[in-house]
């Protein structure tokens, strides 16, 4: 019981103060616990890794959506477009402060979009890095 709490505290401390949101911190803490379970050497999320993941071209997913950027565009502060032409609010927390604060919404969209883009669910590390990156933008 003690360990997840310690990891959670470490994660909280690592977050930039500006992007702070208790709800987002809770989501990240949960992902940190999961990441630690998957890999005991886990030492916190990385915005840089998140940035590379966001921009990467993936294999194994659906051909129309090889990358996060297929719909969200390459700039997290900009509005994206779904394949059906509907605008998608920016992913950057600086633009949409409510991003990554609703656990159900976060779970739903990672599940869907990871399956579309990578052909599998994302790992806790990937999700945590992604949110950490978006919290710096």
């Amino acid at each position, binding site marked *: 019981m003690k360990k997840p709490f310690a990891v959670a505290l470490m994660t909280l401390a690592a977050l930039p103060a500006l992007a702070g949101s208790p709800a987002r911190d809770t989501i990240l803490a949960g992902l940190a616990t999961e990441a630690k379970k998957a890999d005991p050497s886990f030492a916190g999320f990385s915005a840089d890794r998140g940035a590379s993941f966001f921009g990467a071209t993936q294999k194994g997913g*659906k*051909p*129309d*959506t090889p990358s996060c950027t297929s719909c969200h565009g390459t700039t997290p502060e900009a509005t994206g477009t*779904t*394949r*059906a*032409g*509907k605008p998608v609010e920016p992913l950057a927390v600086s633009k949409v402060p409510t991003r990554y604060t609703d656990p159900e919404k976060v779970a739903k969209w990672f*599940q*869907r*979009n990871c*399956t*579309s883009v990578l052909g599998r669910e994302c790992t806790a590390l990937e999700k945590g890095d992604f949110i950490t990156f978006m919290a710096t933008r």
Partner: protein
Amino acid sequence: MLKHILPATLLLLAATPALAGGKMFPPTADPVVKKECGACHMAYQPQLLPRKSWEAMMDRLSDHFGENASLDDKTRDAIKAYLTANAGDGGKWLRGVNTANPPQRISEMPRFKKEHGEGKVQRMKEKSGVKTWADCVACHKQADRGYYEDD
């Protein structure tokens, strides 16, 4: 003469939804349908497809026109119930549809093709940079209110 006819026609259109040539439909009313379907595209009016199309679509959301649109079972069932209960079977818009094997895409419906098939519409679409037929509101500004008569 035209001056009087036009406002009168507009008034008439506004007063008679769902009657004008099968190109007006009641707006999608269900809040869950509006939220979930509307997250990625306009929450298309259920009358635009026959029941059989909606059933097939809602049964394989993990491959929704090349996209994973999975929902939890409860949400999926609620949306399916609304779409099938309000499907377009028997309506004017569905004339000429092979009901045994209906299209999955609204853009493959016979009347859709008839209305959008001419060179003029194609050129309008290309000129305005509209990427997909799925983006109704790009041209029909009030499409989400069920109004497609503005052509």
